[in-house]
């Protein structure tokens, strides 16, 4: 029997909050008797991840994703629960553990702001004791896959967000970690930069077999990268399984927005799609919105009917945002999965 590389059991984290009272007198009372409150950001989370897997850890804003990742990387000490990664407890054996992992936390860079990118890499080379041969090979790979060669000599503060994210990814992988933790690696990036990052992650995983755990808000990241997803909401795990399975449960909802040449009522539009399972949710005048499920009706069919039945100027389709997927799961189950 092979044990999973990463094992999480009953992981829980509370934050201590100080609630401020109002006004001057409130401020004075606060000084003497601060009102403390506990916020349970991560609540009894358990899962296992075998080596080499790429897992999406998803949930709405404030669900507890970053907090979980901070505990898995040894930044935060949990209130209770256990984590072992390859036999090491992150926060207890931090120095030894961090040699084997890489991490990128969203918008915040791990690099030295004022140093040229390459200087940051040289420092990291010393810190992680990467030999020169490995260093050169890794840099070669990064240049191939990420094109960072062009701005290696620029200070980090002068890079665009997309360039910086690529450098951060490279920096996190320089020492060839076994596990890579990514917190919102595509947040704020434009479409091209997002695609670059996704492509890179796929390749690096195939090449090195590195285990990747990434949090995201973007269903696109998940669809393109992860077979397995873990959904959390209010600190609790609500789903842990294959993406396919998730799709089967909540379907593939899409939101359609139509702009018409002339004003129309919802009823008139509903008539164009007739018996198709399309729900017109809102709209008046020239702009209307509808929802339908791709697993029930192909998008092309809906659009064909619409264009035939009304003077459509423009239309767009949007994937259901992750927040709604989570809400739907919630609604279906009515209770958290064990």
């Amino acid at each position, binding site marked *: 029997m092979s044990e999973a*590389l990463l094992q999480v059991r009953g992981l829980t984290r509370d*934050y*201590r909050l100080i609630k401020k009272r109002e006004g001057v007198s409130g401020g004075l009372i606060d000084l003497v008797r601060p009102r403390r409150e506990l916020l349970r950001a991560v609540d009894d989370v358990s899962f296992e991840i075998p*080596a080499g897997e790429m897992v999406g850890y998803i949930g709405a804003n404030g669900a507890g994703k*970053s907090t979980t990742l*901070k505990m898995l*990387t*040894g*930044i*935060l*000490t949990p209130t209770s629960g256990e984590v072992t*990664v*390859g*036999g*090491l407890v992150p*926060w207890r054996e*931090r*120095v*030894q*553990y*961090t*040699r*084997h992992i890489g*991490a990128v*936390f*969203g918008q*915040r860079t*791990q690099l*030295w702001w*004022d*140093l040229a990118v390459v*200087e940051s890499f*040289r*420092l990291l080379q*010393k*810190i*992680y*004791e990467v030999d020169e041969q490995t260093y050169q090979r890794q840099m070669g790979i990064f240049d191939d896959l990420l094109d960072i060669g062009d701005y290696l000599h620029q200070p980090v503060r002068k890079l665009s967000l997309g360039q910086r994210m690529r450098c951060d990814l490279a920096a996190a992988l320089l020492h060839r970690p*076994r596990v890579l933790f990514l917190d919102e690696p595509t947040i704020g990036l434009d479409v091209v930069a997002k695609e670059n990052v996704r492509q890179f992650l796929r390749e690096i995983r195939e090449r090195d077999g590195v285990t990747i755990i990434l949090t995201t808000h973007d269903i696109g990241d998940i669809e393109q990268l992860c077979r397995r997803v873990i959904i959390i909401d209010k600190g609790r795990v609500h789903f842990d399984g294959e993406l396919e399975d998730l799709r089967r449960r909540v379907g593939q909802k899409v939101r359609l927005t139509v702009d018409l040449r002339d004003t129309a009522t919802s009823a008139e539009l509903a008539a164009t799609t007739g018996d198709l399972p399309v729900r017109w949710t809102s709209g008046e005048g020239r702009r209307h919105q509808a929802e339908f499920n791709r697993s029930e009706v192909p998008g092309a069919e809906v659009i064909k009917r619409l264009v035939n039945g009304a003077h459509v100027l423009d239309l767009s389709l949007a994937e259901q945002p992750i927040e709604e997927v989570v809400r739907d799961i919630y609604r279906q189950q009515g209770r958290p999965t064990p």
Partner: protein
Amino acid sequence: MDLRTQRGTEGFWPRLIWQGRIFGAYFGQFVKMRLAYRMDFLVDTLAVSFSMAIQLTVLSVLFSKIRALDGWSFEQVLFIYGFSLLPLGLFNLISVNFYGFSDKYIIGGKFDRVLLRPVNTLVQVMFESFNVSGLNEIILGTAVMIYAGMKLNFAFGVGDFLALLVLVPSAALVYTGVFLAITSVSFWHEDRMGLAPPVYNIIRFSRYPLTIYSLPVRVFLTFVLPFAWVAFYPATWFIGGGQLPLVALLTVPVGVVVFSGAVWMWHRGAANYASTGS
């Protein structure tokens, strides 16, 4: 996969050497960065030299009027003053990151990054930036000590030289320990104003012979906020004063104890670190 078997440098000395190399790398980067802003560097050096010159002028004007202070001659007082600059300079060189630690590292969340790297957190924070003006203090302190020592006809032997090599770092440990302890408090209380500035002001009391103060102040500076150990007690090794030369050697255990206590507090604090939202 068992990560426990794949270890980095091990053993006390190899790790110390490795940390020395990291220090070298950080310092090298720092110098490069400073050289990139050459003007800043020049302005800094000028500013520090200027403020030192003023301090010295004040001191000599003061002592051209008063020839002695509670039984201590001007030269002895000057010697203590000069000595006090050595550990202070050493401390200033590495401790700039203690100032604003709460803002930068805790409220700003920069401590996350520190925790992600396989190097002792304290080593990283201390070595991430240096304050070169510390070098000026060391140079000036040495000059003042040599001048005062010559006036005192002080025969500086090998033993004295060794004592200096031990006492200065020990006194620097006292400084570093005190401010490290204060800095560690910010892991529990995100305090923007901080205790450091008022405590920093108390340092100036340590530059004069302790015996000029009243008993409560002496007790306070010896046992509570132990700044008597950063200049007066160790300096007495050289300038004498009754039984004091032996007391001077106590600077070593005091430094070690204060600093170890502070390091312990620091690590307790780091385990209590709560990071920041988003």
